[in-house]
Structures are given as structure tokens and as C-alpha cells.
């Protein structure tokens, strides 16, 4: 049973040897990082086919993370989704509270195999940072997390969690002071300390091999969910939906379903105050092909290639790039991507809370908001699978302010 949690892409067709998913991907990195990135790729290639690696990772996924994660039907929520049946893949129930731990444990094992003693990572909502700090505590690795200053404020609970776990958290004050700038600063650290440091990249973006490797570590989400829904309902869903920032939880859910042509793949990206307002992070809706953080994909940029500042109420989706495989899935027409505004996401967060007793992360609430629309489109015969990528504890301050839930004088 436990041997099917870590299953690298069995097709092995994409990306190409150079890391391309169609026109997207590649490896746009400074020469100083080429040796380190090549080392990660070589070590991952070896690990992928090493039964000892799979055994160790699978053991952690079962006995530390708590996989398989549950599949929960949400009928009271589904009443608001046109009566379609809606199932949630409960990545929020993983240890540390989100899907991020799947990838982190895989890369932490690789770090050990490479003989490196220090790990750095970027984080937006803090979920990847918490997962990374957790794995570093577990394996006795030194840990530094870069986080945009704005995000350290709106996700203060996660900053405290990382520090309790023994990690150093550095608030990044450059640029838009969000996820993009945290990645810039992590790259600067990596160039200077590459010999003993692994950059534990948290999403399916970045230079090859990160998009494919991080995807492989998250494929378990879709593999489990596909099996669970077949067991429970006896058929495949009409659509699977997930939020997309960098795109890791979405690709983890989507990937197994790509050959199932009748299953629609729907990514929900952050539209902030609305795509037309200019204040959003809807990269696939409003971006253009370009290079950011090591690969070619869609990017929010101006006419001269300067990256524009994104905006979302959700720190985890507040990013002007997107993983290259999503760009490929969009252009090939296999997946569709829709924008969801702050307000739509926050209403969905409250709706799931009051109808099902599950408080989702604001990131995941974007997927739920999209699911309400998709469910109405599918009608009562529809069957919908949504990835609940993270839990909402970290977002309670934002939610309390948004909905005015603090008693007068309480809160900050």
C-alpha cells in the first residue's frame, strides 16, 4: 500500500531533457548556479529510480505527514454550487496544514543525499516556510526562510511557527515586499552559499528540474484523489479544480488526470480587486510569455519586460509568475484558468466554514469560489473534485478584519 505515494511521472514525456514543456520552462540561471542546479537534477534522477529513496519518502508521507489525506464530500456547501456533488481533497489535514509538506520532505531527503547542511526557502503565505522549517527540524538541517515584509505581517502566525521550529526568518524589504521579492533574495543567498546550501524551492516554477521535480512530489494528491473518488462514486469527476499561485497544488491534483480527457482541469488564479483594476495576480489571464525566476512562462510584465507588482489578499497567490507546465496546459487547451476576486474568495471561505465546519486557507478559498461557478455550470448531475490545499488558521486575522469579527477594542 505505502509504495504508491511517491510516483514520479510514469509517462516521462515532458518536460524535455532541457526542461521544456512545449515552449515553456528551460533554465535561465546565472552561471554561478549552473553546477548546483545540475547537481539537483542529477541527484533527483538517481533518487527517482532508487527504491530506498521511495521507501524512505513513502514512510514519511504515511507516518509523519498522515497520508493518504481524506476525501470529504461537502453536500451543504454543494447546495450553493447548483446541486452538483462536490468532494474536497483534504491536503489541509496533512501535518503542517497544507500540501507543501509533500514536496518539502522529498527535497529534504535530496538535501541529505547531496551532503548539504543548510536549506533556504522562500515563502508567501508561510505554508511552504513552515513545512520547510519542519523538515529541517526533523532532519537537523540549518534553515533560513525568506518572506516578503508585507507577508510577515499578514501571516504573523506562520512567522512564529517557523521561529518556534528553529528557523531563521528574514523579512524581505525590497520590491513589492511579497513572494516575488522573497524568491529574489533567496536566489541571492543561494549564489553566495551554494556549496553547502540547497534552495528548497516551493513551487512548480523556477529553473529545470524544479518544475518537474516539485510536480512529481505532489502527484500523490491526484493519484490518491482519483482512486478515492472512483471507490466512493464509481466514476471520474467532470472537473477537478485548484487554486494557482505558482501552481504546485494544482499540478499535483491535475497531473494524474491529464490523460483522462473527459475530466476538465480548472485552475483558479487570484484576481485581487478584479483583473480590470490592474490590482491582481492573474498571471495566466492577463500575463504574457517572459522569463522570471529561471524559466519561461506567463509573467505579469510591462511592455519592456519589467515585472509588474501583483496584488492579492492571499499571500500564497500574490505572485506575478506561474509554473511553466501550467502555461503549457493553458496554451494546449488541456486546462482552463479563471480569475477569482478577493471578495469571491472570502465569501467562499465563510461559506465552507458555516456549511461544513471546515475553515480553508484564503488560497484554497479561491478554488472553492471557482467551484461554486463550475458546479452551477455542471448542474445537479455534476461531480466536482476540489483541492483544499491548506487550512485557514493562519488567515484568521485577515478574515476577522475583512468580516469585522473582532469585538470593539480587541484585535490590533
Amino acid at each position, binding site marked *: 500500500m505505502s509504495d504508491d505515494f511517491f510516483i514520479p511521472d510514469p509517462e516521462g514525456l515532458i518536460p524535455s531533457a532541457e526542461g521544456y514543456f512545449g515552449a515553456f520552462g528551460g533554465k535561465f540561471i546565472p*552561471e554561478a548556479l549552473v553546477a548546483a542546479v545540475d547537481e539537483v537534477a542529477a541527484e533527483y534522477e538517481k533518487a527517482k529510480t532508487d527504491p530506498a529513496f521511495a521507501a524512505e519518502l513513502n514512510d514519511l508521507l504515511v507516518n509523519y505527514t498522515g497520508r493518504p489525506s481524506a476525501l470529504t464530500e461537502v453536500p451543504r456547501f454543494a447546495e450553493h454550487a447548483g446541486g452538483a456533488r462536490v468532494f474536497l481533497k483534504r491536503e489541509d489535514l496533512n501535518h503542517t496544514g497544507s500540501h507543501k509538506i509533500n514536496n518539502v520532505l522529498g527535497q529534504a531527503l535530496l538535501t541529505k543525499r547531496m551532503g548539504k547542511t543548510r536549506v533556504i526557502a522562500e515563502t508567501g503565505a508561510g505554508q511552504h516556510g513552515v513545512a520547510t522549517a519542519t523538515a529541517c527540524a526533523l532532519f537537523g538541517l540549518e534553515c533560513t526562510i525568506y518572506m516578503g515584509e508585507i507577508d510577515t505581517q499578514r501571516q504573523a502566525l506562520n512567522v512564529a511557527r517557523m521561529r518556534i521550529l528553529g528557523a531563521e526568518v528574514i523579512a524581505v524589504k525590497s520590491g513589492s515586499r511579497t513572494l516575488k521579492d522573497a524568491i529574489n533574495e533567496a536566489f541571492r543567498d543561494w549564489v553566495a552559499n551554494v556549496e553547502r546550501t540547497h534552495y528548497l524551492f516551493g513551487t512548480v516554477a523556477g529553473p529545470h528540474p524544479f518544475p518537474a521535480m516539485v510536480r512529481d512530489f505532489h502527484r500523490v494528491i491526484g493519484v490518491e484523489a482519483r482512486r478515492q473518488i472512483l471507490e466512493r462514486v464509481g466514476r471520474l469527476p467532470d472537473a477537478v479544480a485548484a487554486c494557482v499561485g505558482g501552481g504546485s497544488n494544482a499540478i499535483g491534483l491535475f497531473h494524474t488526470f491529464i490523460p483522462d480527457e473527459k475530466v476538465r482541469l480548472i485552475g483558479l488564479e487570484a484576481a485581487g480587486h478584479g483583473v480590470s483594476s490592474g490590482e491582481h495576480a492573474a498571471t495566466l489571464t492577463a500575463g504574457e510569455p517572459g522569463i522570471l525566476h529561471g524559466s519561461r512562462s506567463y509573467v505579469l510584465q510591462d511592455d519592456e519586460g519589467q515585472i509588474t507588482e501583483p496584488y492579492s489578499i492571499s499571500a500564497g497567490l500574490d505572485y506575478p509568475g506561474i509554473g511553466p507546465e501550467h502555461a503549457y496546459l493553458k496554451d494546449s487547451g488541456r486546462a482552463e484558468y479563471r480569475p477569482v476576486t478577493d471578495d469571491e474568495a472570502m465569501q467562499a471561505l465563510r461559506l465552507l466554514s458555516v456549511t461544513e465546519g471546515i475553515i480553508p486557507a484564503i488560497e484554497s478559498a479561491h478554488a472553492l469560489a471557482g467551484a461554486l461557478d463550475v458546479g452551477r455550470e455542471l448542474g445537479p448531475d455534476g461531480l466536482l473534485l476540489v483541492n483544499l490545499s491548506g487550512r485557514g488558521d493562519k488567515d484568521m486575522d485577515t478574515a476577522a478584519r475583512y468580516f469585522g469579527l473582532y469585538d470593539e477594542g480587541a484585535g490590533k
Partner: protein
Amino acid sequence: MSANGKIGNIELLNKTLATARAENRAALIAYLPAGFPTVDGGIAAVKAALEGGADIVEVGLPHSDPVLDGPVIQTADDIALRGGVRIADVLRTVREAHAATGAPILVMTYWNPVDRYGAERFAAGVAEAGGAGCILPDLPVEESEVWRKAAEQHGLATVFVVAPSSKDERLAKITAAGSGFVYAASLMGVTGTRESVGAQASDLVRRTRAATADLPVCVGLGVSNAEQAAEVAAFADGVIVGSAFVKRMLDAPDEAAGLVGVRELAADLAKGVRSRS
């Protein structure tokens, strides 16, 4: 052949480096971002560096996400971008600095602005402005074919960066693809001044020379004063200084004082590259 007739100044760059070598000294290469503190102020700074004694200038095209730059150049890029600097302003900086001094001018930037503008269009623009080449440090040799074709067609050098972590077989591949000179990063890190230039630099220059028959090898990152310049000049064909120039502008009470500082630093460094220690 250039489509619009004007050929870039790669030959001028080659000649300048050959002259320095013939004079038994290293060339002094200064880096200054366009648009900082203003477009005209940036042009004046480039001219001041050349008049002070720099042989070659790299004009930076500021980018919103300068992942290879330390705080000094990040700050200058920020000021330039908030001032609204455009690629046309960068090309005007190249044109006016070259016209005023006759020196070889390169453009240094990240790949996305060039990719977005169009590699062919960018190369034509730099050549038309009298530029000599480009340095694109996040464009690895494997992804560089489109750019190199455009650069070659327009008579521009493609300067690649090598790092202490570059293995010998990569040095061979990179130097075979590059032209003008090789930019050897003295240490593993981002731009910025350092107390000392590490021992890694001389080893990297030695290994790079072993990989290339004819390309000059110039060393950058961390060099900020005449002593360091002399130390590097002892084993390299050129000494590249960036953050120290930018810092003179940033720290000065006004632009005029900043220009004096740039000129002084260039003169000081020019002595350094002539006194190989």
C-alpha cells in the same frame, strides 16, 4: 551584415583590450546603470568614468528583479525605474557616451527585458547607438543561440560570465560561444564591494585562459579600490568595477559631487590597473 547598415563596435572593444595588453596593463571597465540618478545624470556619470580613466563602460539596463545584484545596484535600479527609465533612454546613454568619448560601451542587463523587446530589435538598437556588445548574466550559453545570432549579425560582442563553480568543460563551451571578453566573477555572490578579492579569482582566470586561446579574461565582483584593482590586474586582462562607482553617486550630497567622485575613483583605479602588484 546589419539589416539597417550600422555595425556595432565589437572591433573597437577588441582593439581597446589589445591596446591595454600591449601596454602591459589591465583594462579598466566601469559599470553604471542608465537612468540613475536621472537619464542625463547617468550619461554624465558614464562620461565622467571614461574621462577619469576607464577604458570601457558597461551601461546597466535597470530591471525590476535584479537577482544578481546586491543592495547598492538594487537601489540605483530602483531609482532609475521609479524615474521611468525606458530602453530608449538606455540606448541614448550608449549613443551619447560613445559619441562624446569614442570609447567602447556595452549594455548589461537581464534577459527578460531583451527577450520582451525582441533580441533582433535590441541588437540592432545597441549597434545603431554605437554600442560594442552585451552582457546578459542570466542567459546561459545553452539558451543563447537566438541572441548570439542577432549580436553577430549586428557586430556586437556577447560577453558571458564564468564563475568559480564553473567546471572546465563548461569554461570551454562558454568561451567558444562568447566574444569580446570573458567576465570572470571573482567570487560566488551578488554584486557589491568586498573587503578583499578572494583567491578563487586567480584560479578561475587561470582555468579560463586554459580554455580559450584568444579571449581576454576580465574580473568583476567585489573590486572597489586601487589596491584591489592592482591585485586583480596582476593576473587578469581587465578589472570590472560597478558598485563602488554607484556608491559614489549614491553617497554624494548632489549630482555634481557624485560626478566628481566617479571621476576620482576612475582615476584612482586607472592607476591601480597600471601598477600590477
